[in-house]
């Protein structure tokens, strides 16, 4: 070989070096691979005949994007720059049944079988990589890969053993024996119906021994009845929130099925959670419920951008990011309310702190304004308003200091209209529902994404139930909402090209929030209101609605996938902005994402468009 031999394939070698596992090859093997590369060009829309039975090859995408489909034309894989295909038949020797569709003009490198097998033989990492890639393919393309980070661990990940239960009619003596035997600090008390209480070693001390009770009394008499529970798929920090809110240390874990019946999964203790407290949101939430003054909360809020950046960097699901960030906001809000009550004294009548919009939906990310209100008991008297006005000011000012800036539309508890007794709130909602005008609804739709952050649950439920009841079957109201929702369409032209902003500051971009995320939240809201669904989170709404007849399961799932994809791309964009030291915004340029992401984004937008058409058919028939 001449001295220039390594220069000769420089461009090829350089590219391969950027591709795992070629970067693990020894120099001689890398050169062998580069020398074996043959290049072909493929034009968008063609289906080149790449897979030849007698001549299997490894294909490496040098540019462009390609789709692999099986004999039934089902999608097997989508690959872009640096992606591979063709390897399964090289590994198994099985007949090739797939075919390839060119999504975007591109160059394909191919490596012949002899070279590929020699690289496998001579480099273990290379061999292992393709074996794993093959195994992964077999598991079928799960669109969003499983991730296991501490941040996003669920309750089910932490509870270590099957539930230890005792019958409600057993004696406390038996209970104590069982706890000692199983070495646990608590028991789940059950009847034939299911869970009815919790018994802890503390209950035995204070309610039995200290109270001088006979050890033969049934468990039912000393247990905590109707305990607060947590869903097994709730995230760990949410469980922590429940514990700190109610000052309890044992949480029964329930798996709710579609009918609302629960199956007992186990019990989560404060100790379980502490073991996992190293992760940041848990720490932030824990801190937030401890600090005694506003300045302390401002300090904690400063860490939210870092938390958000870290989660994005760790590739957390957009849904999880929304829940984590919102939970921190909730914790800060609750602590502000606690602090206010500490200063102002106990509230004169029951109240509920309401969150609307993205906080209501648990979908906050960077740059969230505050949207909140105060729901007061009907027993409130005019002279009580001083108290609640002061409470609202304390909390809203505090939120503003923490970076949740005042709502530009004044949807805040400090505004008199949004600090009202139940009957006034109901009158307000009923007016929107009974006399809907698209214009009025444009501004009020976020009120329908309401969630209780603090206060008396029955009061909140009364409002929510009456609103949902009023919405159902109210076709004019639903048609008006639909009319508004259809004003925001995904930025795709008839020919499936991106429609970009033509001029101004955000030239050649589209607004991922306005044209991507909001259309889906609108769709979910309308279906939720039409079916009386109490969920406010978009994905939870869609999941619950898909159990009914209004929206087909497949359509709901497609829409969930599309929503997660769009939200995730938006978050990645914000993450890039933050990493560059810029203010996060919603303006994405298609040029900023890989060609594969562009294709998936078009698919996602297409799903949203089709859902909008479905919405129109269902709710505006003959009306507009």
């Amino acid at each position, binding site marked *: 070989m001449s*001295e*220039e031999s390594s*220069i*000769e*394939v*420089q*461009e*090829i070698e350089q590219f391969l070096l950027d591709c795992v596992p070629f970067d693990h090859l020894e120099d001689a093997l890398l050169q062998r691979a*580069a*020398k*074996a*590369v*043959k*290049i*072909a*060009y*493929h*034009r968008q829309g*063609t289906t*080149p005949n790449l897979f030849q039975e007698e001549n299997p090859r490894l294909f490496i995408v*040098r*540019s*462009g994007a390609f789709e692999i489909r099986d004999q039934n034309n089902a999608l097997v894989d989508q690959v872009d720059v640096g992606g591979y295909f063709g390897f399964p038949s090289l590994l198994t020797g099985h007949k090739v049944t797939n075919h390839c569709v060119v999504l*975007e*003009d*591109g*160059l394909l490198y*191919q490596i012949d079988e002899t070279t590929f097998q020699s690289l496998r033989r001579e480099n273990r990492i290379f061999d292992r990589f393709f074996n794993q890639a093959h195994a992964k393919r077999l598991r079928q393309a799960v669109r969003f890969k499983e991730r296991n980070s501490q941040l996003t661990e669920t309750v089910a990940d932490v509870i270590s053993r099957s539930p230890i239960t005792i019958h409600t009619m057993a004696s406390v003596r038996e209970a104590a024996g069982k706890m000692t035997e199983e070495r646990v600090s608590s028991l789940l008390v059950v009847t034939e119906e299911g869970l009815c209480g919790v018994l802890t070693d503390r209950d035995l001390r204070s309610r039995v021994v200290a109270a001088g009770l006979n050890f033969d009394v049934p468990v039912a008499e000393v247990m905590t009845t109707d305990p607060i529970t947590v869903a097994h798929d709730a995230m760990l920090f949410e469980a922590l929130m429940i514990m700190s809110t109610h000052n309890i240390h044992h949480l029964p874990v329930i798996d709710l099925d579609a009918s609302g019946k629960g199956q007992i999964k186990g019990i989560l203790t404060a100790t379980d959670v502490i073991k996992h407290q190293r992760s940041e949101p848990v720490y932030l939430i824990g801190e937030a419920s401890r600090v005694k003054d506003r300045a302390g909360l401002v300090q904690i809020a400063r860490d939210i951008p870092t938390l958000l950046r870290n989660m994005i960097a760790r590739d957390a699901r957009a849904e999880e990011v929304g829940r984590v960030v919102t939970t921190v906001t909730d914790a800060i809000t609750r602590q502000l309310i606690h602090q206010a009550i500490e200063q102002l004294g106990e509230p004169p009548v029951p109240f509920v702190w309401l969150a609307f919009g993205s906080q209501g939906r648990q979908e906050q990310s960077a740059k969230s304004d505050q949207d909140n209100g105060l729901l007061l008991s009907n027993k409130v008297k005019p002279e009580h308003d001083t108290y609640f006005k002061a409470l609202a000011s304390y909390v809203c000012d505090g939120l503003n200091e923490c970076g949740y800036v005042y709502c530009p539309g004044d949807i805040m508890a400090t505004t008199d209209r949004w600090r009202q007794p139940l009957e006034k709130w109901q009158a307000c909602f009923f007016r929107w529902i009974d006399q809907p005008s698209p214009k009025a609804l444009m501004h009020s739709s976020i009120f329908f994404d309401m969630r209780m952050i603090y206060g008396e649950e029955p009061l909140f439920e009364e409002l929510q139930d009456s609103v949902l009841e009023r919405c159902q079957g109210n076709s004019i109201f639903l048609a008006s909402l639909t009319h508004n929702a259809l004003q925001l369409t995904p930025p795709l032209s008839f020919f499936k090209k991106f429609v970009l902003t033509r001029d101004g500051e955000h030239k050649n971009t589209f607004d991922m929030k306005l044209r991507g995320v909001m259309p889906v939240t609108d769709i979910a809201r309308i279906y939720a209101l039409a079916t009386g669904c109490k969920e406010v989170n978009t994905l939870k709404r869609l999941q619950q609605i898909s159990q009914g007849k209004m929206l087909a399961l497949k359509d709901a799932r497609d829409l969930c996938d599309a929503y997660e994809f769009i939200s995730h791309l938006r978050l990645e964009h914000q993450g890039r902005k933050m990493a560059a030291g810029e203010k996060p915004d919603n303006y994405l340029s298609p040029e900023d994402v890989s060609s594969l992401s562009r294709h998936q984004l078009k698919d996602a937008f297409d799903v949203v468009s089709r859902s909008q058409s479905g919405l129109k058919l269902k709710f505006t028939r003959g009306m507009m």
Partner: protein
Amino acid sequence: MFQWLNRLSLGRGQEDWFVKALNKDFRELEFLALDLELTSLDPQSGDILSIGYVPIIEGFICPGEGRHCLISEHSGVGDSAIIHGIRDCDTDDGHTMEEALAELHQARQGRVLLLHHASLDLAFLAKHDNSYSSLLAVDTMRIEYQRRNRQGQAVANSLRLNQCRERYHLPTYKAHNALTDALATAELFLAQMSYMGGEERMSLGEVLSLSR
């Protein structure tokens, strides 16, 4: 029909091969994509600094069979170093023109030459070997010129190699040397063929017509 055939300069015994080749699909043939780095754009005063080539065999570019030759005989790289990054000292261990042309001649056997802006590079080669002055080659720049003319698009200032490549969504190469540019030309050629003929048969005769 192929009047330009008389411009052909072929070695003895090659006419037959070429006439047969004219009717064959270009994917059944071999091409040699060629690029030169020069000290100036003027064939009168400039010299060849390096020769790079990559074959296309049956529709596939084979960079592993490519070659990059630095030439030691030249009158100094001068300002052209800014473009190609070759310094005088880099070519000290290079080949003589005679060796390089002999290797090129060997590599050309049974292959059709393929260049971007063929007339310039061929003029430089003709200084050393007159047979290049009448050699027929496929020119990706001419193909692009004709294609854009037919589509009624502006041609001025749009025919540089990288500009042409962008139109076919081909990646941008950082390195600027004769071999990379030969590879880039080969890729552009396949892209042009794919756009103009698709999967359809396209004879060498047609390809040459497109590049007149």
